[in-house]
């Protein structure tokens, strides 16, 4: 384990930019810590923390000089690796001939600074969806550099400890930092992380520094805002698919899509075509979509998931159960964003707990339990 002082951290930021990366990091905008292009450590949220709960988020000044003393805001790396809107292809019609051109592969290389363990996991979850079939995603993903920051400040809605995805960065990073007073302990996770670190002028961390770094994440584990009992979640949700709680939550849910938009693993998308007035040029664009949209399940006979109940149930059951059947991993990394950024504060951990305490109250016919 190495130790990098504050100046060394500044050198890290400069070196990433010098190597041609577009540096993406946390920064304050409109009352929240968002992810955006940053130009050095000066743009980071120094001395700022946030308070979050169901449907509520506020920034506060801490009076200290820490750069990473907060837990994440609404954005995750998804915004950059799987952009909200992306042109897939264009088509031109000239003298009866139709030409279709796939969009050129993206040229941008990102360096993500300050990703938490939950979000590093979320990227690996999305890899299972996009990496095989989407060359633009793959290129952005492979060419990006990932600087994780071990979490010492879980938010009021976080439950990564329950999902086994944090608070300590275990994989998926090139460098992982732990912020201590006056600097950072650093661990490389890849050869290119190691190589970059060797240029930064770090020193070996002392035993006391290594112990302090371990204490940061141990303390975070104790302070998780939420917990979730994950024992046999798929079984629980499948056998309770007619549970009255689905009606109860549907009476509160706005079907507004916010939970799916902020979820770092949600991948649903729609492909829309635009055409010029003279009919000679068309553009095919992929955009973020959501299972909370009624039109998202539109098929020839009409909308399949007409009720808010069926849409909420689809979302929660996919995240925590059928995702595992489909991709071999949970669709939830416990980041808590869907709880904080739900305008009416619906809490997945509370919904699941409510079903668990009355498990089996509503029987489901055997033959349809797949």
């Amino acid at each position, binding site marked *: 384990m190495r130790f990098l002082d504050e100046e060394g951290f500044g050198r890290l930021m400069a070196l990433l930019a010098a190597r041609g990366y577009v540096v993406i990091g946390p920064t304050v905008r*409109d009352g929240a810590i968002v992810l955006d292009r940053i130009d050095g450590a000066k743009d980071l949220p120094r001395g700022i923390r946030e308070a979050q709960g169901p*449907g509520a988020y506020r920034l506060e000044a801490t009076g200290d000089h820490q750069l990473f003393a907060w837990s994440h805001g609404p954005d995750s790396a998804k915004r950059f690796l799987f952009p909200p809107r992306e042109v897939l292809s264009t088509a031109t019609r000239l003298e009866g001939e139709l030409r279709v051109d796939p969009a050129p592969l993206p040229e941008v290389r990102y360096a993500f600074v300050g990703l938490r363990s939950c979000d590093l996991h979320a990227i690996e979850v999305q890899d299972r969806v996009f990496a095989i079939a989407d060359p633009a995603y793959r290129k952005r993903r492979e060419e990006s550099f990932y600087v994780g920051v071990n979490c010492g400040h879980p938010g009021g809605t976080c439950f990564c400890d329950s999902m086994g995805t944090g608070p300590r960065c275990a994989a998926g990073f090139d460098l992982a930092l732990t912020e201590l007073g006056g600097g950072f302990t650093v661990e490389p996770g890849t050869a290119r992380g190691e190589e970059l670190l060797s240029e930064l002028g770090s020193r070996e961390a002392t035993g006391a520094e290594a112990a302090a770094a371990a204490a940061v994440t141990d303390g975070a584990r104790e302070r998780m805002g939420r917990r979730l009992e994950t024992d046999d979640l798929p079984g629980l949700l499948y056998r309770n698919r007619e549970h009255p709680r689905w009606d109860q939550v549907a009476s509160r849910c706005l079907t507004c*899509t916010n939970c799916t938009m902020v979820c770092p693993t949600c991948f649903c998308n729609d492909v829309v075509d635009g*055409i010029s007035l003279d009919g000679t040029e068309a553009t095919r664009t992929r955009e973020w979509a959501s299972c*909370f949209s009624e039109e998202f399940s539109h098929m020839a006979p009409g909308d399949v998931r007409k009720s808010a109940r069926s849409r909420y149930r689809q979302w929660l059951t996919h995240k925590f159960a059928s995702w595992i059947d489909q991709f071999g991993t949970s669709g939830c990394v416990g980041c808590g964003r869907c709880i904080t950024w739900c305008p009416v504060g619906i809490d997945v951990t509370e919904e699941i707990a409510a079903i668990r305490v009355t498990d089996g109250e509503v029987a489901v016919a055997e033959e349809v339990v797949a």
Partner: protein
Amino acid sequence: MSPKPRVAVFKMASCDGCQLQLLDAEDALLELAGAIEIANFAEASSRLEEGPYDVTLVEGSISTPEQVEQIKEIRAVSRFLMTIGACATSGGIQALRNGRDLAEVVRQVYPTPEYVRSLERSTPVAEHVKVDLELTGCPVDRGQLLGAIAWLLQGSVPRPPTTPVCIECKRRGYVCVVVARGEPCLGPVTRTGCGALCPAFARGCYGCFGPSQPPNTEALARRFLELGMSPVQVAEKFRFITGYAPAFRETAERLEREEASAT
């Protein structure tokens, strides 16, 4: 090449803002003029040709006895009738008078009320004639309008999205005003199409695109009450530009009854 489709633009009770979305379209306007024949568009040209028209755009609500007749005549000469804007699709801001004493409202607004001949209610065009496509918004979104025309020219009827404004607000990375500021926003019950214009300026949506997919207005109203608003203040939020749309009106009426019975 087949002759260019004949297009007409008519106006009922409205402010002209939606038609201006067409007239202000600059570059696209030239392209549009190349693709269609503008047969009747009083705001753009004094050359007004008789129908039939292939595509007719109607701005504005039905607010006078004459308009009730006029819209039937327009329908009869239009192959495809598209209404544009909040007035044409939900009665508009002038529908605020609906349910009140019309004579009293007219007296309050006009110095010479005897000149005003108006219907009791301002209503959407679809209450009077069959409408083939509705584009909402105050005003309509220019991109959505030109896009719809472009698809119609290809013989395809577009399906404007019904998902709430929130989806676009998040795609664009705006910070939610309800969650981060505790301010009311109608985005969760309003259909997307504007590009989340109001949240872009850190203010709540006031619902000008009208109700989204079956909207849970009651759940949002409960949230606004939690934020410290009174039932009547919440009702006023729903009774704004598209307040006569049934989903918004019903919740507003229920809240007004709630406040009345509490006092």
